Each structure stands twice: as C-alpha cells, then as structure tokens.
C-alpha cells in the first residue's frame, strides 16, 4: 500500500481521480483488514497536501458517514490533515468549516458513543485547524467555545481546546487592531463571557464528579484531587 502513495499523490496533484476512483480507494479502507486499513489512512493523510477541493470534500463526507462507535484515530487524523494542508489559492473555507463542524460534533456529543481517546483526539484536531485560520475566524471560534462553556456541557474538553488555541493562535503580531496577543483575547473573553468564573465553576464541577467517582470505588482517581 505504501508503494501506492506516490501514484496517488501524483494523480491527486493532476486532479485526475474520478468519482469511481475515490470510491474504490475509500472502499479499500473499509475492507476488514487491519494492516491495509492503517496503511491506506497513512497514505491518504500523507497525501492530503496534494488533494484538490473535490477530493477533500469527498473524503470528509465519507468519514462523516462512519458510525461514531466505529470511529478510529486515523479518521480524526484524516479530517485534521485535510483541513490543515491547504495553502494559498487552494484554501477552501467550505472544507475547513466542514472539518471543524465534524470534529465539534464528535467532541460535543458525549452520547455519540465515541471513546474518550477519540474525543480527545478530535479536540486536538479542532485546535490544530483553528491555529491555521485567520485571526477573525479564530476569534469567532474562541467566542463560540466560551459561549459553549457557559452551557456547562463538555466543559473540561472546551478548557483544553481553548487553552491550546490561546497559546498557538494569538502570538503577536496577530494583525488584529484590538486583540494583539493572547492576553488581549483572554481580557475580551473575560469581559464578554466572564471566562474566569466559567473556568472556576467547571473546575469545581469536575472535582465534584471525581469525588463522586471515588466514592463509587474508583481509588485510581484519588491523584486527581
């Protein structure tokens, strides 16, 4: 399969894949053969930089059709690579927003049967994509994260994403007239959403959940207190 990487990259660079070709490739990823599946996802993720928009949209849609319980780390990696490897004129907002929405859904729907590992990977992927977006879009997404935190849903994951985004996306110069660094962004979120209070409440709620788990016999969580 690895030998196919150069061929696939070349065909994608030349925009030569037909709908049937893409389907054939995706179907190979669904063959119940662990090695072949892993190798294929490696090839697809590695070749993402050569994908044209049509390839990106196709593979995003196919990953979107995977059942939450069947989701593996390679799916998340593919979504992230598809959204973070576009450059210059090839940049497609549609692709980026679609990828973000998919990862957001995985992160936010705790009832979606995805494992914790997948949720954490999706959170990392989400912040990786955000770090490649324009400052205006990143501010919008950071506001969305703060707003979601006020709903008390998946707060600990939101804190993780938000802290990564603040570290990676607001290095000066940001090019924004008012938000020139991470500190300005924290001030903005604090003023608008009372961020510090939300984080403290989430922390208290998290500690409450840990205590409850310990009282049911989860001695291994004592270190978290």
């Amino acid at each position, binding site marked *: *399969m690895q*030998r*196919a*990487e*150069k*061929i696939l*990259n*070349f*065909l994608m*660079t*030349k925009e*030569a894949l*037909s709908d*049937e*070709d893409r389907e*054939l*490739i995706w*179907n*190979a990823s669904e*063959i119940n*053969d662990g090695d*072949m599946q892993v190798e*294929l996802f490696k090839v697809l993720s590695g070749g993402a930089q050569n994908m044209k928009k049509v390839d990106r949209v196709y593979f995003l849609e196919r990953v979107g059709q995977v059942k939450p319980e069947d989701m593996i780390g390679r799916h998340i990696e593919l979504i992230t690579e598809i959204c973070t490897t576009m450059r210059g004129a090839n940049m497609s907002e549609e692709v980026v927003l679609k990828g973000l929405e998919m990862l957001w859904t995985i992160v936010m729907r705790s009832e979606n049967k995805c494992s914790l590992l997948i949720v954490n990977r999706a959170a990392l992927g989400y912040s990786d994509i955000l770090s490649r977006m324009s400052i205006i879009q990143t501010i919008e997404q950071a506001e969305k994260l703060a707003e979601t935190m006020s709903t008390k849903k998946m707060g600990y994951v939101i804190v993780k994403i938000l802290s990564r985004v603040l570290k990676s996306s607001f290095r000066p110069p940001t090019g924004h007239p008012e938000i020139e660094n991470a500190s300005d962004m924290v001030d903005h979120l604090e003023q608008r959403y009372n961020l510090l209070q939300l984080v403290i409440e989430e922390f208290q709620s998290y500690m409450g959940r840990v205590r409850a788990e310990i009282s049911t016999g989860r001695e291994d969580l004592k270190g978290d207190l």
Partner: protein
Amino acid sequence: MPRVKDLDQTDLSNSKTILTCEIGKLFLRQNFLERRIDGLKLLSDVSYTCGRILEGGSSAQILTEKQIESEERKNKMVDQVVEMICKDGEVLNEIFTKQRTHG
C-alpha cells in the same frame, strides 16, 4: 519513427518514462504477486518523476525559448502518463482491490 541519434535529452527521458510506465502496467497484470509488486514499484517511480516535473514547472526563473519548449514536451508526457495510469481504472483496481493486492 525518429532515430535515437536525433532525439535530445528531453525526448530520451520522456521515452524512458513512458516505456517504464508501460512495463509497470504490464507487470501489474501478471498473476505473480512479486511481479505485480515490481510493476507497482515502476509505476511509483514514474509517478515520482512526473511529480518532480510538475513541481519544477512552478519555478520563477526566466526560461529560454528552448527550455520552454522542453518544459511543454515534459508536461505533455506527464499528461500521457496520467492517461495511461487512469485508463479503465486498471491500475487503481490492481492496487486497491483486496483479491489482487493479496493474491
């Protein structure tokens, strides 16, 4: 059919790539896994060569007329290779269909 001595470096290089692609496809049709792997290697090399040509095409340096003409011939060859690889979906079928890959 042009004589070999009349061909320049670009023609020779293009012919070599096309011939390698044809041999790769031929090997890929064989019933022996090892031969098919050889075919895949050859096609992989051809794809790499073509990929390098495409990367070189974006160079900002000023080219002479002769160089431009040579680049055009290389690009034509690249298009021919794409056509050969994509024809009837044969190559991708060989790679991405389980019974052939593991045959």
